Structure formats: C-alpha cells, structure tokens
C-alpha cells in the first residue's frame, strides 16, 4: 500500500533558553536525532516513549506545528518540510490533531457547535451546520450538545468534541497526542473504541502518541518506540510485544503494573 507519510533523516533542534548567555545565541538542544520511517495509508501507528523522548515533538513536526531543522517530511507526495504558513494552509485540512487536554484546547467561551464549525468555516466548507451535526453523530454525542459549553461536559465527552472537530474536516491523517491519559478507565475505553471504529469507517490514517503500551497494543498495527529522540524499535505490534528487541522496549514493558497481583514485577 502507498505511504501517506515518508520521513527521512528528520532532525529537530530548539534553542535551549535555560543555557542562553546574556549576549549571543542560546545553544541548540537536539530533540529529534535523525528519524526515518513511513506511515502507510490507512495504518494506525503507535508512537511510545518515556517523557522527554521526543514523541510529542515528532508529532508536531508531522503536522508542521514545528519546522524540522533537517531531513525531509513528505506528505502524500508533497515535501512539506519547509513550507511557509501560507503554503501549508490549503494542506492543513488534510492533517488534523487531537490534543491531550481538552480543557485547554477547547475555547471555554464557545459552544460545542461553534468549536466544531470554526475550522470548517476557515477551510471554506459549505453546509457547515449539517457537517457539525454529522460529526457529533459520528462521535456518539446527541445533537443538543452543539448548544453546550465545554465546562458542562465530562472529560470523555470533551475529548469526543476534540475528535469531532478533527474528523469534521474529513482529513487523511489524524495525530492523537496522549488523548486518553487524563481520562478514567471507562471513558478511556469508550474514547479508544470510538477512535478505532472511526478510523476504520472513515478510512483515515492515525498516529497515536501514548506512554501506555497496553492501550497501544489494543489500538495500533505498528508501534514505534522512541528514546532520546531516536527510534529504538519500529515493528508490527504483535511481533514487538511477542519478542521485544531493544532493551529499552523491554524496560518499558516490564515497568507496566498489570492489574494482576501474580505478575512478577521486579
């Protein structure tokens, strides 16, 4: 199958402001150190790693919220590595993001309907009202929710609004950055099952960033493990869990407390 994303030798460094001298430039801090991989159309890729491993930075480079400092990011045949904001704008509809914390990524002063309609209007869609209702229906929220404010919703419902906003644009690619880490197990299960179904039904490609390997195993066909800005392992999910190659992957797996008092956890 064709690749939606092809990433070649991706580097990203940021200015380390904590070590900036009074005069002169701040030293560069390398976050991503030469990543190469591709994402097939229709695939669900899990990106895992500890804090500081660069997984969120990688995600932001994929949807070009950050500009890489080296390498190439090719999206569906187009090199988007260094495109300007204006050049990116027509492409943005095609890659969307769902954020970790729905409380800070949904405008508290807007009703749910307005929140979902806003990007549709920016991208010049017609029949916006019908699209908003269809998106709400897709994520299993009744249409009355369009009139509500984010603070009137539960955490799981808010995250559904974030999903609705992303899928309303009918994107090819969705990046989900730790979208269930703030939720209870039951709402987490609901949101993940929903996402699994939507990706299959709407034929989207998904990159799912998470620190929870149990969740990734359930949802993703492929898993990429990051450590210190490098890929330590990138394999089919079943193969990776059956026989992890990298020591870091084994450490990550061994550290997960299973809900099972008989697990050897040393």
């Amino acid at each position: 199958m064709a690749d939606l994303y092809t990433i070649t030798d991706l580097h990203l460094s940021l200015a380390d402001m904590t070590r900036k001298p009074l005069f002169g430039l701040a030293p560069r801090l390398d976050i991503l150190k030469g990543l190469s991989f591709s994402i097939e159309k229709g695939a669900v890729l899990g990106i895992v790693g500890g804090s500081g491993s660069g997984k969120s930075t990688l995600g932001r480079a994929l949807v070009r919220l950050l500009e890489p400092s080296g390498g190439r990011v090719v999206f569906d045949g187009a090199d988007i590595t260094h495109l300007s904001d204006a050049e990116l704008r027509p492409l943005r509809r095609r890659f969307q993001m769902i954020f970790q914390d729905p409380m800070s990524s949904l405008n508290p002063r807007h009703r749910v309907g307005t929140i979902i309609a806003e990007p549709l209007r920016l991208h010049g869609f017609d029949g916006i009202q019908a699209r908003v209702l269809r998106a709400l229906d897709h994520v299993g929220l009744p249409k009355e929710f369009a009139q509500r404010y984010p603070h009137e919703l539960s955490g799981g419902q808010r995250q559904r609004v974030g999903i609705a906003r992303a899928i309303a644009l009918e994107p090819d690619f969705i990046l989900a950055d730790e979208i269930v880490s703030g939720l209870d197990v039951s709402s987490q299960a609901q949101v993940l099952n929903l996402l699994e179904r939507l990706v299959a039904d709407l034929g989207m490609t998904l990159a799912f960033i998470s620190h929870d390997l149990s969740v990734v195993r359930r949802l993703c066909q492929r898993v990429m493990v990051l450590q210190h800005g490098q890929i330590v392992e990138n394999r089919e999910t079943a193969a990776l869990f059956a026989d992890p190659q990298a020591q870091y992957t084994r450490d990550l797996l061994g550290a997960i407390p299973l809900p099972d008092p008989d697990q050897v956890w040393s």
Partner: protein
Amino acid sequence: MSFLSVRNLSARVKGGGTLLRDVSLDVAVGEVRGLVGESGAGKSMIGKAVLGILPKAVEITSGQIMLDGVDLLALPPAQRRIKVGATCALIPQDPLTALNPSRRIGPQITDRLVDILGWTRQRAEERALALLGEVQITDPTRVLRQYPHELSGGMRQRILIASAFAAEPKLIVADEPTTALDVTVQKQILKLIAALQVRHGTALLFVTHDLGVVSKVCQKLSVLYAGKVVEDSAVADFFRAPKHPYSAALLAATPKYTDPLAGLQPVPEAVIAAVRAEVGHG
C-alpha cells in the same frame, strides 16, 4: 488493630451536593489500603478529611475519624492539628506544585521538623540527609542546596517521599503519587514507597485510579462510586473475583498489554444505573 478507622463519614459541599456517603474503612498498623474510583468518586476527599485539609467549601455532616483511638472530629482544631501533624504525612500528587519554587530543597524538608516537632536544625538536617540517601538520591548534600527547578520530576517526587517519612509518621496519605511520572520512573517510585513503608512500618492510604498500581502496592482496597464504598476487599481476592458488579466492570475496562483482547470495555450502562440506584446518586 486499626490505626485509622473511618466510621460512617459523610460530607457535602456547603449548601450543595453530597461528596461522601456513609464511608467506613480501616487501615491497620503497617497496612496499605488502596482507594480507587473514577474522578469525582471522592477518593481524594477521604484522604483530605483524615488530614484535616478539606477545602473550605466542604463540610463533614456526620461520622467519625478515629486515629490511634482518638476521634479527630471531636477534637478542637488546634489539638487536631497537633495530633495529625505528629502522626500523619502526605505524599502529594504533583511534585511540581508541591514544592516551593523559590526556596532550596533543604529547608522545605527540615522546616516542619524544626518548627512543629521542635528538633534542632542540625538534627533535622542530618535526618534529611539520611532520608535523601534512603530514597536513593546521589549526592544528597548538594541536592539540599538546590532549587526544585534544577531537579527532574522523579527526583522531586523522591524528595516529597523523603519529606513525608521524615518525622516517622504512623500513617501516610499518598494521593496519586505517580500519575505525573512515566512508567519506568513510576516503577522506581512505587518500589521505593513500598520498601520504605515496610522498613518503617508505616500505614498507607493510597489514592489511585490505576488498578495495576493497586495490585502492586496494596493489601486491601476500597472501591468508591459517587462517594460511597461499594466494595471493601483484600487485594488478592479482588483480582480473583471482584464482589461488586461495578468493580468487576472497572477491572474489565483496564487494558492489559499481555492480552490484546482483554480490557477497554466501557462500564456498561446497566451497571452504572444499578450502582447509581444503590448509592442513591442522582
């Protein structure tokens, strides 16, 4: 014998909704009890009620909190503070906000020992040094002179653990102490808490939403729904056969990487309706 015994405790927001409904639980000397439930179930409230740090808007409407045989709720506030301060401590959830960013680590550990327990500063500093060693911080002398921003999240959490054990408390309330950490660090911290808890014989009230964590550190657990304890079991029994349908559903919602087909089943509507009716919630 139970060191902490909460009896029929009820609490509510002043002039508003009920937070705790007739909660009873016991923590024996040296025992670890997990408090689990979804957010808003009241698990943190119980810990806060024991320590006497409930938000001002919350009032206790009935019940008793027996600590070492004394009913805390019957004591005048000043005496209650002395009793709790001498025997209890808290490991807070977020190591970023729990430490004062503008003060060095040293005084943040020793102040309490000096000001409340009347230790000499030298004795307090020796104690702090020894404890930082116990929580496996290398070069503790230097860390005492550092500021919180110079340390990683895992280091900060270790410092809060050291601080909690500093005055040899009989009971520690650990309020989701590892939710802000990643899995490998979480494992180190949990093992550390467990080792210190055993070595010092401290009882622990462990608030968490993660049943995986419960299975690793707790001997008993209470499952809460809408402020009511729906199950009180030994951990080994709970994971073999949960007694209450709601706790069984909670377990079924927890994912397991060893079994891709298990877990991630949302709590069924029927179970929620039944448990709501049972606890008398909305």
